[in-house]
């Protein structure tokens, strides 16, 4: 799809370039997302969906990842709250490698369960809260978590390594832009980023040929806050703060900062209990205007190169799109709906969800169950819309 878009861009650009004309080119965002998942997609009967246009859904999710002492995933549970607004019927499924699902707190309806699907069906009268507490099989969902943990208990200390795993690469382009317009686009992108809202569609004017550049590495910035509770008070720590027997730390992985983080603790008397919260966050650093309160003002003060401004706006928007993608670990049936996801990693024994999981084993639910990287319908539609928009620009 991305290749198709790039090819289409170049094909469209060629006649314009011949004329030396100015053309409008679509900037990244709000969609398509660079990869098909998240949200999770599973093999199964084709999901049916009926969320009429007059019903909107806001999704809030809390992903609870249980990890062992080495940071390896042992259990996975998601609490998804879908707030429907509007009047009408709804029928949809949320795909996930789900083992069991129960109504979450405050749910005004009961979720149904099928292989790989959480089902919702009913009638919404202005407002309706659908809350699902789902136990997922960790293995197929693990590749789509935003953070990888690695803990080492060595003699006399403990080391925790964090890695932002949202990294992917995307095709970008370059061309002759207009400095003032690019500055305005940077300001607009910054405003939307700081407001925590989804990017609105934007075009950039480029003169002449639009060229594809080498693929750009993109990662969702993650704000991470952690707490390690040790058996004893640690002697020292690098990368955190000691408070009694607890070490706390806070960092952002991405947004012009490293994608890895390392915490070294000396002492502590053994392996700690970990509690870590990761949130896909805004792009801040990358969008700070140099020596001014806005990009427009910065450009007025000194002639920043248009090529660098274009590259910055493209990369910032790609990161914001990636961040937005991780705001929906499970699907929201409303493609335009607002999503928020918090990822919580906690030290846990294996399968803490067993208490709520059904006692009967199910045939055919083996661990070899495959996740399929299918482009989600919304992504395809959005990509198509982007292409059409581009073609008509």
């Amino acid at each position, binding site marked *: 799809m991305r290749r198709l878009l790039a090819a289409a861009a170049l094909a469209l650009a060629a006649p314009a370039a011949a004329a030396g004309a100015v053309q409008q080119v679509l900037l990244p965002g709000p969609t398509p997302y660079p990869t098909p998942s998240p949200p999770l997609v599973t093999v199964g*009967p084709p999901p049916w969906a009926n969320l009429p246009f007059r019903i909107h859904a806001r999704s809030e999710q809390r992903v609870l990842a249980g990890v062992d002492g080495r940071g390896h995933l042992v259990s996975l549970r998601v609490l998804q709250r879908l707030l429907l607004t509007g*009047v009408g019927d709804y*029928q949809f499924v949320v795909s996930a490698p789900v083992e069991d699902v129960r109504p979450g707190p405050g749910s005004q*309806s009961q979720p*149904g369960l099928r292989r790989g699907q959480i089902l919702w069906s009913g009638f919404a009268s202005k407002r309706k809260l659908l809350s699902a507490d789902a136990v997922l099989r960790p293995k197929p969902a693990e590749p789509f978590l935003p953070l990888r943990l690695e803990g080492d208990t060595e003699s006399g200390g403990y080391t925790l390594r964090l890695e932002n795993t949202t990294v992917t690469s995307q095709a970008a382009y370059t061309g002759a832009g207009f400095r003032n317009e690019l500055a305005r686009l940077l300001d607009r992108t910054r405003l939307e980023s700081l407001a925590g809202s989804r990017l609105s569609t934007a075009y950039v004017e480029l003169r002449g040929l639009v060229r594809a550049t080498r693929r750009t590495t993109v990662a969702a910035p993650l704000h991470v806050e952690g707490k390690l509770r040790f058996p004893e008070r640690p002697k020292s720590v690098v990368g955190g703060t000691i408070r009694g027997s607890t070490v706390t730390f806070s960092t952002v992985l991405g947004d012009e900062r490293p994608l890895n983080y390392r915490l070294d603790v000396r002492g502590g008397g053994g392996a700690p209990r970990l509690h870590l919260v990761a949130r896909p966050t805004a792009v801040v650093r990358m969008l700070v205007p140099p020596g001014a309160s806005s990009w427009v003002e910065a450009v007025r003060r000194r002639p920043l190169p248009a090529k660098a401004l274009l590259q910055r706006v493209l990369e910032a928007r790609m990161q914001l799109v990636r961040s937005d993608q991780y705001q929906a670990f499970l699907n929201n049936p409303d493609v335009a709906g607002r999503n928020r996801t918090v990822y919580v990693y906690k030290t846990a024994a294996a399968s803490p969800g067993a208490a709520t999981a*059904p006692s009967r084993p199910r045939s055919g639910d083996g661990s070899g169950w495959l996740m399929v990287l299918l482009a989600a319908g919304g992504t395809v539609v959005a990509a198509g819309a982007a292409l059409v928009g581009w073609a008509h620009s």
Partner: protein
Amino acid sequence: MRRIAFLLAGLALLAAGCGKSSGAKDAAEHLVIAVDVPVTGSPYVAQTIRQGVALAASNLNGGGGMRVGSKSYELTVKLYDNHLSARRAVQNARRALEAGAVTIVTDGTGVDATWELARREGVSICITYDGGTGLVDAETRPNVFRIAPTNHGIAFRYAEYLIPQKLKVALLADDSAYGREGAADVTRAFASNPEAVALRLTLPAGQTDLTPQMLRARRSGATALLLWGQPPTIAAALSAARSIGWDVPFYTPPTGGDPFIRQQLADHPDWVDGLTFASGRMTAEVGTAPFASFQSQYEAAYGADRVGVKTSDGQAVLQPPEFAMYSYDFVHVLVAAITHAASVEPEKVTAALNEVTTQGANGDERGFNRHSHEGVVDDDVYFARFDDMTFAPVPDDPLSATLPPIQQTRG
């Protein structure tokens, strides 16, 4: 999806036929659907359930049956009369299992006793009338399914509908099993709002004069009656209330829509006016077209269900085939499950019932899942009110207000 399955099944049949040099056609095997209903206890209910099953089976068989593996199958409907007796239902279940039934469709009579018998053979039971709480439980009764509005759903929808109207509701129920079960659900639904309840009273089922009970209800200060009972009880209560000049609004479960009530009160059609009943909606948001199509098929096969009364302008009143729709839908879900399981073994088919969805006769999706064996969700309960012997969705309930009325008259 179902169309594709039929198409593939059809192509497979065609291919199989082409492969035989003799050109002889495979003899289809018969897959038995047992229908256990109160033919002599509640004939209208029995007839509508049986005809719904038979119509779906006839449609499938008329299209060449279905192909499962190397065999083709046609559906055969076997009728059993349970006389509204649990003991007879048990006898019927045994006979149905001996006959090799893949499923038993029932009004709900005796399911507390029959489900275990059926489960031993892996056979599913589908209730298409009785909404009793406890009859269906996906965990403890994994082979029992239901496509019919539940008492629980109706009771809670009534609480949701009536309490905001600031009515003082007399909660009445007759002493039949149906009435007692409904009363329990209504009590739970109104438990948090005792200020909305004027009176709780049990009525003797089968008694034709309920004047003393209606006088007592009126003295309690009730401004509405929610009566959970069999159609004769509702008819008797309406008759008594109107006879003493009490024009109180009546609210009832689906039994309020039973033709019997209108037949009993045919001499006083105005007494029926304002009677409201709750049931599963017959139309979806897509409109009346799917249900109208089903209704016309049903009437072409069996004729219209005439209520036996007329409107004020002399038009004959017809009863829409609501409960026939549920049994009709179940057969479609069953066929989808057989296709999904690629087997006619009852145990596999029963398991597959949790995994399939079909489009119901009213345009809604119909199916079950591992956590819920209810084919009508509580949200689908709507309220309809009688006027001039026909009913229409009420305008003051958000769901009901979205539903178009169903044509019920014929000149």
